[in-house]
Each structure stands twice: as C-alpha cells, then as structure tokens.
C-alpha cells in the first residue's frame, strides 16, 4: 500500500495534569475574594498598591508590607472584543479589559459582561480607556479570580 507524503502523519496528543500551589500571598487574596473583597498588596516605601498582589515591591526593592482593599469601581486602561472562536477558549463574543480599580496602582484583567457586542466597533467605542466600570461578584464566591467580573458603571 502506498501513501502519499501529504497524507502520512502520525497523530499525537499531550495529557498532562498539574496541581499549582497557591502560596501565602495569592492565598490571602483568594481568601479576600470569598468575602467579596479584592485585596491589593501595598508597599509603604513606594506607595504602590499591586494587583495582582506581589510579595515584593519591584520598584522599591522592599517587601510589600500591607494590604489595601480595592474599590469596586475603576477605569478601563485597555479593552478588546473577541469575535472568533479560539480552541479551548470561551465561545465568542466576549469583552476583556484591564481595569485600574480605585485605590490600586496597576490594572487587573477580567471579562466585561452585560454589554451588547454585536456591533464590534460600537462596543469598542464604549470600552475606551478612561471608561468607568464596576465590579460584580458571584452570589457565592469560591476564592478564585473568576468570582467577579466587570460591567459598565
């Protein structure tokens, strides 16, 4: 039996399982989420409040020595609307945004839900940097980053 070169492939798949240790800093952040609180690590030396939280302030070269609670409102710094299906990723359409929450120095990514997305340029115009959004928590948070999302304020 002859096989054309173009047809001659060997199929393969990778199945690999992991258990990621959360650690103290992320653990405290996730504990906060269970109480519908978003906790940012704070460095007194630099004055920077980090989301995602860090153990160490990369700017001041000092350990982050406190926590501040992020407000449940913030502003968009960057956003996009996804209209194509990527393998193993959510069904489109959906909106993603980096949002700088009140009391926090950095921006945190999440989905923006509750928006009409069928007219993509029009939806993008509603998500321009500087746009105000709010945090909306699940009714029963599980201590995971997916416990909340953003919506237009």
């Amino acid at each position, binding site marked *: 039996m002859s096989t054309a*070169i*173009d047809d*001659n492939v060997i199929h*393969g798949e*990778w199945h690999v399982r*992991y258990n*990621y240790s*959360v650690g103290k800093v*992320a653990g405290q952040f996730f504990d906060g989420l269970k109480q519908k609180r978003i906790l940012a690590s704070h460095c007194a030396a630099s004055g*920077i409040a*980090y*989301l*995602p939280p860090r153990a160490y302030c*990369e*700017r001041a070269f000092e350990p982050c020595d406190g926590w501040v609670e992020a407000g449940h409102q913030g502003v968009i*710094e*960057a*956003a*996009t*609307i*996804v*209209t*194509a299906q*990527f*393998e*193993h*990723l*959510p069904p489109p359409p*959906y909106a*993603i*945004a*980096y949002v*700088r929450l009140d009391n926090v*120095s*950095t*921006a*945190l*990514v*999440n*989905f923006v839900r509750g928006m009409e997305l069928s007219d*993509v*340029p029009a*939806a*993008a115009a509603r*998500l*321009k*940097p*500087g746009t105000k959004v709010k945090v909306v928590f699940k009714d029963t948070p599980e201590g995971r*980053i*997916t416990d909340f999302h953003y919506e237009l304020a």
Partner: protein
Amino acid sequence: MAKNTVAVIGTGQTKFKTHYADKTYVELAQDAAKLAMDDAGVTPDELDAIVFSMAPTQFMGVNDCDRWATSHVWGTGKPFMRIHAGGATGGSALQAAYVHVASGVHRTVLVVGADRVAETPDAQHVLNLIWDRFYEHDFALNTVTMTALAAQRYMSRYGTTEEQFAQVVVRARKNAMGNPYAHLKGEITVDDVMNSPRVAYPYKRFDICPRSSGAAAVVLSNLDVAKEKCARPAFVNGVSAITHSVFMGDRMGVFSETEFSDHDGEHIAAYEAYRQAGITDPTSQIQVAELYDPFSTFQFPSIESLGFCGRGRAAAISDEGGWDLDGQVAIGPSGGTLCTNPIGVTGLVRVVDAANQVMGKAGQNQLPNVHNAVATAVGGSTQFFAVTMLGDDHATRGRVQ
C-alpha cells in the same frame, strides 16, 4: 569593556509555508544550517559552538526539541545551548551567539532553529497557557487578544484608525512578493483587510500573521575569520535587549513607569544598540528596518520606538508612503513578520533579512546603498524586546566604550 568585532558571514533560510509534509522538524533545521554554512564557506569542524533558537515547543509537539536537533545541526562534540524568549527568541539567540564571539571565547558560532507552528490546530490554546493559573489565565489571553488590547489603547492615545493598520498589511504583502521565502504575499487592498472576518477588535483576520513552518540560520565570526571567509560581511555593531514584567496591567495607567501600547522597552533597547553602533540620527543613518510585527498594529509603535518619528506620528507618515521601499526608511522589505511567522526563528529571520540587505544579497528585494539595518524581536506579553544593529562598516563601531 573591550571586545571583539562580530560579523554575520553567512545566512540561510528555507521557504516558509503552513506545512512541510516532506521533512521532519530536525531536517528543516538541518537545511537552514547547511545553507548558512555553505553561504559562509565554513565546515562543521570550523564551528566552535551552536546556539539553538526555539520558543515554546508545544506547537511542533516534541518537548524540548533542541535535544532532537543537536546532531542534525552539527552540534555534537561542541558547546550547545538553546535560547528561549518567546517571540524574541531569534533576536536573543543571535545576541547570545554575539556574546560568544565578542567575548573572545569562540571564533565562529552557528545560530540555527526551526519551527512548525501549524503542527497543532491548538496554537492559541498553547499561547493561553503561558499565563499564570492564579490571576490571568482564565480571561482568554493569548497573543491575539493581548496585542489587541495594546492596539485599542494605542488607537485611543493617538487616534489611529483600523484603515491605517490595514494599509500596513497591504504594504507588507506587496513587499513579500519580492521575497521567495515569504509565506503570505500578493496584491491586496485596504478593503480586503477591512472585509476579512473580525477576530478581536481592532483585528480582522488579515491583520494577523500566519502560522508558519520553516527554518533559519546565521554564521557569526570574529574579524579574522570574517576577513578570510567573506568579502562583504554584515557587522553586528550593536545589541541590546530589555525585559518588562509579565503583568501588562503594570504597564498602563498613571502609576506606570512604562507605556504598554508604546512598546517603550523597544525604545530603550534601540537607543542602547544605537549608542554601541554610533547611530545618532536613526532616520538618516538607517536604511532598512526588519521589524517583529506579527500584527498590523505593531509597526507604528515599533517605528516610533526606533526613533524614526515621534510618538503617534507613524500612521500619518505611513499614509504618505514614508515607510515604503522608497520612503524615508524601508520598513520590512521582506514583507516582515505579518507575512511569515515561524515563532521560534522569526527574530532570526529578521536578522537574516536585515543582514542580507547589508551584504547586498537580498535578491529582488535588495535596496541600494544599505549601510545600516536594524532587526527587532518581541516576545512574551509584549515583554521581551531585542534590537540588533547591522552595518557594512565596523571601523568606529562594534566597541562598547
């Protein structure tokens, strides 16, 4: 810090296309190695070390495939290292080899690699897996969405339009028609780009590079070997790389020291490379820029970071043809990364194409009077930037003072 002059004395690249049905991964890498060694006129015995250029191996599907390739690229019995900096890999691999030679440790070094990005249909899934599982992985980040976020921010800052990005694609595909190795090429229109299916705002399908398979290689040597082997080498006169935090959210907003949408790490790297190369006025001294531009939106912030114009000005100059082959600086005469993206070697292809212009062997795409060319590479979450300056003269250059 005195060091040795370093020169590109041979280059090689295969054609780039979606699939190679007639060769395995390592046979592709071998083809590029052989091409570059033949071009340089060196034998395997004359190579002192090998630097292997390879990014994530999940695309081609053999974990840490550099092990598989060692003997195919004539690496056995020699020092061998793999460099991986995401999309910046090829630029960083070239720079690692540069240090091998500049330090005086080695005389002649082969940089080689291959990629087969379309071996899996799950490429953007693989790229989503580069984000941490705690904070960012769950939000559908991948190279398309993360750069779409930067593009939307850039558009908001500077008023750039989707049509202006589309014109970049038109120019790239046209330039690629003169490059026999390019993956995508042809005459298309702004309307063609605008009418291609939307993917992630502001991207349509044509704003996005293809998934390419192919290989590239470069032979670097010191000045003594270059004088013996190559009548017209491309001297590596400046190298620099800058790294940012993985967290894109650290790089936007009033508290940030850097600006995510501006690619300002590339600016820092470029000006260090320029300093080493004696470039004080990039627009008048550099004739060719081979950019790592896998998306139509990458060119403008990169052009601005390289100092060819002020922030927010590149789009208007593009509209006027300023980045065409006969413009003030020829941007991506090869068609660039928008037309060809074999991720693990793309940065190296940029060096090959830039060096070929300096060496006068860019074929149909050869531009006249190329004295200096710049090659860039960008990787991670727009996080790694590598900039390499190539020139036809080393007399007052290639020395860090």
